[in-house]
């Protein structure tokens, strides 16, 4: 945005003044806390489900994960943690990567990764619930 020779003499503040706040500045902050709170009961439920399934054969595991209550809890778990981890990793990237282009590419890759993990997990869970 800022070249060595400015194209105009208006200050950055003057250029944005009057446009109003975007009012979305705290969205990530809020969603990070929202998903953090959601993650607490979901992790407890997830740990109970995993302990119930330890050492069981595939048929039993698939049957339990296909139960409506278990499937819905696991879907909520996957969505909440992938949203939470996307924001968390973006903060880490913004803290340590200072090259603008590399930073943008990494923030994009972060979203791609989180969406891919979420969709792969959701695909597995839906297949377990609806059977194929």
């Amino acid at each position, binding site marked *: 945005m800022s070249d060595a020779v400015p194209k105009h003499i208006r200050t950055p503040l003057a250029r944005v003044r009057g446009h109003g706040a975007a009012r979305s500045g705290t969205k990530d902050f809020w969603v990070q806390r929202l998903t953090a709170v959601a993650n607490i009961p979901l992790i407890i439920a997830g740990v109970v489900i995993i302990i119930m399934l330890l050492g069981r054969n595939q048929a039993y595991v698939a049957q339990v994960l296909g139960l409506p209550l278990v499937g819905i809890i696991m879907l909520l778990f996957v969505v909440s943690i992938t949203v939470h981890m996307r924001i968390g990793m973006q903060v880490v990237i913004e803290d340590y990567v200072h090259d603008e282009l590399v930073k943008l590419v990494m923030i994009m890759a972060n979203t791609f990764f989180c969406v891919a993990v979420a969709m792969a*997990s959701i695909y597995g869970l839906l297949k377990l619930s609806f059977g194929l």
Partner: protein
Amino acid sequence: MAETKAPAARPLSPHLQIYKPMLTMMMSIVHRITGVALYFGTIIVAWWLLAAASGVNGYGRFEWFSGSIIGRLILFGYTWALIHHALGGIRHLIWDTGRGLGPNEREWLAAANLIGSIAITVVLWIIGLLALGSSR
């Protein structure tokens, strides 16, 4: 996206290297590291779900991994990271209400976070190994 270039290379403010390590500071760093570890660990969760959905052979490959020494070590580390990050998250939620920020409280919370995460992880693994033994 305002990118301002410094006109000259000025000295930067001192970073971690000049501070004496403190428990609260180490817990802050560990919270971030466990978060990053859990981020990549979700691949294992996705693999588990896809393996269960794929059938006997696919699930067998996952069980081969989860039953191996390396797999067990990774899953033990993942359990601890999950519990530690969860307790650390609760600590942050307490701080968000403005409580627990006093000198004694924050030390106590940091210690409770560490001790709690280790204790809960060990208890979960004992329960898990007992469940594994009884299901065979």
